[in-house]
């Protein structure tokens, strides 16, 4: 069965390491914070200028000067630091963030990603996404494997305007965990109960399928 949003977040959380600085995009990526393994510390970077993003505030803690990149009110954790936007993106662009998790509309076999614009329909802007995909070595894209109409989002070539070129190496969908290298998708894991055939059918870019594809473990 396809993973729920929470399960996608849980699987991403397995990629965390102790001491990681992590930037989580809006939507499913945000949920990853809820599944940090016991005994492990990670620090969340929010690109509006906060390293050490904490949970939502209580009514008493609510502060208009304290928001995250999704414009939600948040708190800071113990040991947090706050800085300006140039410093925040110096951190991101300079490759100091250990892991970036973000959503996408499309990803292709060359590691291109389209995530910010649907011409004529959605033109809200890229925010910090272009900087994040250009700055991080270690990025996990989370998205559904295909649209509601069954159109694959894992393509031979992105059809929408790109957010970044050749920068994505790992994709976690509701069906599979996939690596991108040498111009191909490589199937690493499948969602519990989902068959390799189903995944292949919904992947329109070329995919390498090893003999044994393990199920994700939770």
């Amino acid at each position, binding site marked *: 069965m396809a993973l729920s949003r929470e399960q996608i977040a849980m699987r991403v959380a397995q990629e965390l390491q102790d001491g990681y600085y992590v930037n989580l995009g809006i939507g499913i990526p945000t949920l990853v914070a809820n599944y940090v393994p016991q005994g492990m510390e990670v620090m969340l970077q929010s690109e509006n200028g906060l390293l050490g993003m904490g949970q939502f505030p209580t009514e008493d803690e609510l502060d208009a*000067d304290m928001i995250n990149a999704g414009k939600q009110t948040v708190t800071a954790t113990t040991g947090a630091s706050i800085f300006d936007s140039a410093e925040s993106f110096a951190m991101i662009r300079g490759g100091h963030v250990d892991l970036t998790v973000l959503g996408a509309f499309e990803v292709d076999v060359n590691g291109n990603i389209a995530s910010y614009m649907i011409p004529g329909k959605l033109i809200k*802007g*890229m925010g910090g996404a272009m900087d994040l995909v250009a700055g991080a070595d270690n990025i996990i894209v989370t998205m559904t494997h295909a649209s509601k109409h069954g159109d694959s989002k894992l393509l031979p070539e992105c059809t929408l305007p790109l957010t970044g070129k050749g920068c994505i190496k790992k994709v976690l969908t509701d069906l599979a965990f996939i690596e991108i290298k040498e111009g191909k998708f490589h199937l690493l894991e499948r969602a519990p109960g989902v068959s390799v055939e189903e995944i292949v059918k919904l992947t329109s870019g070329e995919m390498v399928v090893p003999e044994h594809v393990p199920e994700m473990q939770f």
Partner: protein
Amino acid sequence: MAGFDKVVSSYEEAMAGLEDNMTVIAGGFGLCGIPENLIAEIKRKGTKDLTVVSNNCGVDDFGLGVLLPDRQIKKIVASYVGENAEFERQMMSGELEVELTPQGTLAEKMRAGGAGIPAFFTATGYGTPVAEGKEEREFDGRKYIMEESIKGDFAIVKAWKADRYGNLVFRKTARNFNPMAATAGKITVVEVEEIVEPGELDPDQIHTPGIYVDRLIQGTFEKRIEQRTIRTADNS
């Protein structure tokens, strides 16, 4: 105004000299740390055909959004827009020119403008629509694009505290784009919650030195919250 005292006594004085067709750089992220009263003064003045540089464009009735109904903005340079209906209408109809710029590139363009750096290279946007018409170049085997700096005729900034010399301290994530905006205006106007005497701020802890600030005014702020997300005390 004698010596280094940057304090002005009215918002009218604060924005004196702003004219049609000028470029205004504004601090703020979403509705957080925006110079809300300086924006309101621009609305009151009715200045038209402005080019506005700001990460976002406010909402329908607050922040830079209030400059939309009277068509005061000709062009906006921003990373994320469309939080309000009138903006979308003007953009789609072509009445409003929108130059989408990645958030980090935008911050760096402002900083470069203030720092005498006319252009820099960044990997951000390489191979995307942002790269169109821009020079591409390889360094150490990686591709980058050249981005030019941004300067404004005016910069409008919201800080927390200032001394009369214009030394600024920002509070929490309301800092965001404000320090870069402060460096990039020919005339930099700052509104703050509190003005203190010189010497009250620790020299080691000043975020923006007064040299960047031309005019300073103390205001009262609504500080509207865009997305009020709360946890209950027991749900920690």
